[in-house]
């Protein structure tokens, strides 16, 4: 695999992690001493994706701005890898007028039409919307595809089933990606899912199914490449499950007592140091590049956050706008 490509993967993963570490810091910064979910610079629920960067990066490397993607409640890694503007996205998370939705959406509702990117906070319900984007792309004779991303917990929701059947039946250019991070809040995948791999479920719809183990960005890149190629070639949908890891809580503030020893194991599987070591061993990365990558990410993130913080809050009266066109 090309060195520049691999460095690019690394760069993008570091960029996403740097971003989420900064968001995490600001999220907690001013909620103390009496921690209040509604208080502070960033209020509300905050679902961060640390550990799941390989999925977003390996997948989105195959997508253009004209391809669609629907993300779930945990969207930052996907948004950034897809190409959503970091400044506007950050301003949205900080609830500012300059945000993607002028502060109306928040972190679970990032909408960027220029990237055909959207989220839904309702489990699995973003999936049918991606099927509809694919239907539109298909009807218009483009080679664009749509990607629906959801967690392993979402694969037990009816919308998952209906969407796969529909996309297969109509041979639509959709890639269904399941991020299996072993947990749905406190419910382990073994307590939610009757089969060890969701890839098995592809057979129920007559579509290609594949599960990627190891949370390795390069393996994701290759599997996603096959799926995207099938979709673009008009060969119909693919169900791709990636076994990844949730390094942090379900949402910020989650004490994770329910994880027990598994947490330490998970933390020892951070994909970024692992990939960095691999690239160093292969001579693709050296100290200087690593430094440069980190510095570049830090600068971009600092700029985006500064932009958000310096942006005005929306005017209260704007709450009444945009119910209807």
């Amino acid at each position: 695999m090309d060195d520049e490509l691999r460095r690019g993967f690394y760069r993008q993963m570091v960029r996403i992690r740097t971003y989420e570490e900064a968001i995490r810091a600001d999220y907690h910064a001013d909620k103390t001493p009496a921690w209040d979910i509604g208080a502070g610079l960033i209020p509300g629920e905050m679902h961060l994706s640390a550990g799941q960067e390989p999925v977003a990066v390996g997948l989105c490397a195959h997508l253009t701005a004209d391809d669609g993607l629907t993300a779930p409640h945990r969207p930052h890694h996907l948004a950034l890898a897809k190409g959503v503007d970091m400044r506007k996205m950050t301003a949205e998370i900080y609830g500012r007028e300059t945000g993607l939705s002028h502060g109306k959406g928040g972190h679970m509702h990032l909408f960027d039409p220029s990237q055909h990117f959207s989220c839904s906070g309702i489990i699995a319900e973003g999936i049918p919307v991606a099927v509809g984007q694919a239907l539109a792309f298909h009807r218009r004779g483009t080679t664009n595809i749509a990607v629906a991303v959801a967690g392993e917990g979402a694969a037990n929701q009816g919308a998952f089933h209906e969407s796969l059947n529909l996309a297969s039946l109509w041979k639509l250019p959709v890639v269904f990606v399941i991020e299996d991070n072993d947990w749905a809040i406190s419910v382990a995948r073994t307590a939610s899912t009757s089969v060890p791999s969701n890839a098995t479920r592809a057979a129920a719809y007559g579509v290609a199914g594949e599960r990627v183990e190891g949370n390795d960005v390069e393996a994701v890149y290759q599997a996603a490449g096959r799926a995207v190629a099938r979709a673009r070639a008009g060969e119909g949908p693919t169900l791709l499950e990636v076994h990844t890891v949730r390094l942090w809580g379900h949402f910020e503030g989650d004490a994770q007592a329910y994880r027990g020893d598994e947490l330490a194991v998970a933390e020892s599987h951070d994909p970024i140091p692992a990939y960095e070591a691999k690239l160093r061993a292969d001579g693709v990365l050296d100290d200087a590049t690593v430094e440069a990558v980190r510095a570049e990410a830090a600068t971009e993130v600092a700029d985006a956050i500064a932009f958000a913080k310096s942006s005005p809050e929306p005017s209260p009266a704007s709450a009444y706008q945009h119910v209807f066109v």
Partner: protein
Amino acid sequence: MTVTDQPAAASATRRLTTAKAISEAIAQEMERDPDVFVMGEDVAAYGGIFGSTTGLLDQFGPTRIIDTPISETGFIGAGIGAAVEGMRPVVELMFVDFFGVCMDQIYNHMAKIHYESGGHVTVPMVLMTAVGGGYSDGAQHSQCLWGTFAHLPGLKVVVPSNPYDAKGLMTAAIRDDNPVLYMFHKGVMGLPWMAKNPRSIGPVPAESYEVPIGKAAVARPGRDVTVVSLSLSLQHCLDVADELVGEGLEAEVIDLRSVVPLDRGAILESVGRTGKIVVVDEDYRSFGLSGEIAATIAESDPGLLRAPFTRVAYPDVPVPYARPLEYEVLPTHRRIREAIVSVAGR
């Protein structure tokens, strides 16, 4: 609120059923705009269980008139995704009573995406659905439920009572950049296999036209009592009003035509003149449309009413099957007549 958007005597000599008026509106919009297409269960070869898409398959073929699996969340969601990408899908939910299997797509997505996106994403989609009872279809196939949808912000809700409005409202709904829920009562469709009021067949101009969404119509002017209704009940109200003329009682019958936006001005203007109101609503009585009309008046001026606010609505019971039971709870001619007469103080 005026009656100007009623058919001018000359302009429409053709008489169509409401069902045909709806399918004609869809056909004309499909000819105008290649982005319009139809999806739903049994909309193709069958032509829609209640005739809303009859003939469209022959005219436009299976790539634009698409039968779906019984996967309402899947295909309504697909309609939303297509609309987000600029298509203008007309999607049918066979009976509104089935909304529970797909409500998340309807109200958390179709209705909210525009707002959540800060106005950057539009969802120009029409969801049409059959409502209403009166033919013993039981508790899961006979409801109106417009109050349920009107309570949740983000959807326009239109409810025609006659063929003319049905065509014009469908045309307006398809052209609207907002999501529109289009609710047709089976009893106004003029179906050959269901008892019907003659008002379900009426003059419809051949050319395309819009009936504005959010504008009520004075279906029948009168000075004594304001009767506010919609859909099939409106037809009953007109029958009763005609009958009462003989008794010297002039009821003003207002056809809401849209529940969202609700034409509050039209209601207040009429009640301001009559001081008396009867709301006739086939939807469940409590926590719905009829209550909102009471609030509209009481907020404006409780003194407007010179007689108690009166509703002829569906009592808060599920729809029973047996005819004597269902006709006990439906807003029938008898119940409407008694209410108007008693409010009029005759």
